[in-house]
C-alpha cells in the first residue's frame, strides 16, 4: 500500500479476498473455502503424432452455510502435436509401393472451459446443478448438469441420479454443390474462419449429448463399501473428425464418415476395503461397456493406498482395458482379405474405434500439511500436495499407419496438484 495513500489495485484485490475468506470463515466457523489447482501433462510416442497436452485447472468452492455450496472453476487443454490427416492401410500400400500413403497435419489447439455450480442440502437429500462453457478453435460446447442424492439407513445406503445435456457445435467444411455424396466430401483444411462467418468455406454442425447415470453406494461393514453405477449416453450429430480423410478406393479419399447416432451403455462396480493391520486401502473397479456401433469393452482397475505416517500416503495403481472395434471399422477400405475391406456406407481412420487393449501403471504420493494448534498462516486448515505419474501401453490389433503396425506405443501422464482448505 502506498504510504498515506490509497491501496494499489493488487493490494486492494488481496484485501478483498482476505476479507471474503475471513467473513465466510467467521459465519460458518468451519471449513468453508476449498481451493484446488492441478497441472497435468500428457505425452504420446512414437505414433507419428508426438501429441503433447498441458491441462491446467483451478477450482474454488465455498460453503457459506450448511445448506449451500457454490463452486466455480476453469480448465484448459493446450495441445500441440500432429494428427493423421489421410489414412490408408496395407492393401492400398501394397498396390502403391513407395507412395506416402499416410500424411499428418500439425495440431495446435487451446480448449478453454469455465465451470460454475451449486449444491443445496436439506437433511438427507441434496440437489446440485452446474453449467460448463467450453471453446476450442473448432468446437463449442454449452452443457448443464443436474444431480440428486439421498441417503438412508444411517448413511449406509446412498442413491444418486445425474443428468447432463450438451449443446455442442463442430466446425466443418462447406462441400461443393456437386459433391452430393459423402464419398466426395473434402476434409476441413484448418480452423481458420471457424465460428466467425469470415470464411465462406466454413460451417457448423450440431452435436447433442444426453448423459444419464444412476449410482447406489452401500456400506457393508466399518471397513468395506461398494458402489454400483449404470450409465447411458445418447450422442446425436456430427461425430467424425472433420480434418481426417480416409482412402476408400484407388485414387479416392473422402472425409471420415460415421453414423450420426450413437447410444452408449455401461455398468461399473467399485469395492473399497480398508486393511487395518497395515493401514491401507484396497480399491477395485470393473466396468463393462457396449454401444450401438457394436463396440464392447471391459475395464479393470486396482489401487492400493497406504499411509506412511500421519500426513503422507502413497497410491499404487494398475489398469487393464480391452475393446472390440466398431462394426464399420476397417484398417483398409480399398480391399484385401478380412478383416480388411469396405464396410458399407461408413469409414473411419480413428484408432479409438479399432480393436485394441492397453495396460497402465501409476503412482500417486500425497502429503497433507495441517497444524494441530490452529490455522496454517492464520487462514488455512490444511494444505495438500499431490503428484502422480502413469504409463499407458496400448497394443493396436489392426490399426496401422500405411500398413505398418504401431510398435512400442506408449503414453505418459504426469500431474501436480495443490489443495488448500480455508
Amino acid at each position, binding site marked *: 500500500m502506498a504510504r498515506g495513500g490509497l491501496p494499489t489495485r493488487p493490494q486492494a484485490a488481496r484485501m478483498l479476498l482476505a476479507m471474503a475468506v475471513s467473513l465466510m470463515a467467521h459465519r460458518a466457523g468451519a471449513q468453508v473455502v476449498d481451493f484446488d489447482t492441478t497441472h497435468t501433462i500428457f505425452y504420446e510416442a512414437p505414433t507419428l503424432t508426438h501429441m503433447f497436452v498441458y491441462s491446467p485447472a483451478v477450482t474454488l468452492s465455498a460453503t457459506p452455510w450448511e445448506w449451500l455450496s457454490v463452486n466455480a472453476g476453469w480448465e484448459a487443454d493446450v495441445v500441440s502435436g500432429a494428427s493423421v490427416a489421410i489414412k490408408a492401410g496395407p492393401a492400398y500400400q501394397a498396390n502403391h509401393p513407395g507412395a506416402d500413403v499416410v500424411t499428418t497435419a500439425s495440431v495446435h489447439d487451446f480448449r478453454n472451459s469455465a465451470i460454475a455450480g451449486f449444491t443445496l442440502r436439506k437433511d438427507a437429500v441434496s440437489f446440485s446443478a452446474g453449467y460448463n462453457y467450453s471453446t476450442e478453435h473448432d468446437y463449442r460446447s454449452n452443457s448443464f448438469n443436474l444431480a440428486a442424492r439421498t441417503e438412508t439407513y*444411517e448413511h449406509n445406503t446412498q442413491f444418486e441420479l445425474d443428468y447432463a445435456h450438451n449443446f455442442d457445435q463442430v466446425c466443418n467444411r462447406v462441400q461443393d454443390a456437386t459433391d452430393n455424396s459423402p464419398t466426395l466430401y473434402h476434409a476441413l483444411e484448418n480452423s481458420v474462419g471457424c465460428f466467425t462467418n469470415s470464411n465462406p468455406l466454413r460451417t457448423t454442425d450440431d452435436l447433442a449429448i444426453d448423459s444419464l447415470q444412476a449410482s447406489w453406494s*452401500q456400506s457393508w461393514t466399518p471397513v468395506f463399501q461398494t458402489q454400483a453405477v449404470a450409465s447411458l449416453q445418447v450422442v446425436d450429430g456430427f461425430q467424425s473428425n472433420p480434418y481426417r480423410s480416409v482412402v476408400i478406393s484407388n485414387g479416392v479419399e473422402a472425409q471420415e464418415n460415421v453414423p450420426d447416432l450413437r447410444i452408449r451403455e455401461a455398468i461399473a462396480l467399485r469395492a473399497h476395503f480398508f486393511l487395518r493391520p497395515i493401514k491401507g486401502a484396497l480399491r477395485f473397479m470393473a466396468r463393462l461397456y457396449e454401444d450401438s456401433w457394436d*463396440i464392447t469393452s471391459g475395464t479393470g482397475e486396482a489401487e492400493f493406498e497406504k499411509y506412511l505416517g500421519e500426513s503422507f500416503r502413497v497410491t499404487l495403481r494398475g489398469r487393464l482395458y480391452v475393446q472390440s472395434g466398431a462394426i464399420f471399422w476397417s484398417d483398409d477400405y480399398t480391399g484385401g482379405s478380412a478383416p480388411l475391406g469396405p464396410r458399407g456406407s461408413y469409414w473411419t481412420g480413428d484408432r479409438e474405434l479399432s480393436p485394441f487393449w492397453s495396460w497402465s501403471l501409476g503412482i500417486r504420493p500425497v502429503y497433507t500439511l495441517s497444524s494441530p494448534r490452529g490455522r496454517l498462516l492464520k487462514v488455512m486448515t490444511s494444505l495438500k500436495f499431490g503428484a502422480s505419474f*502413469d504409463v499407458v501401453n496400448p497394443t493396436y490389433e489392426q490399426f496401422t499407419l500405411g500398413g505398418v503396425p504401431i510398435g512400442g506405443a506408449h503414453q505418459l501422464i504426469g500431474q501436480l496438484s495443490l489443495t488448500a482448505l480455508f
Partner: protein
Amino acid sequence: MMRLPVALLFAWSVLACVTVKPQQRAILADPTMVFDGDPQATGPVRHAYQNREAAFGGEGVSGGGCGCN
C-alpha cells in the same frame, strides 16, 4: 409377475439389516475410502483415457468440450 417386486422388497429389507453405526464410520469417511474422493486430481487423468478409448461411463456425466486431441 410378482417376482420382481418381491425380490426388490426382499433386497430392501436385507439392506435395512446392514447397519454400520455412526460411531463406526470413521474409516469409511477416510480419504482413502470415499468414492471419487479427489475429483480434481482424477478428472484430468480420466479425461486423457476417455479421449483415447471408445468406452464411457461409470465416472460421472458432467463435462464440456471435445478436448479430444
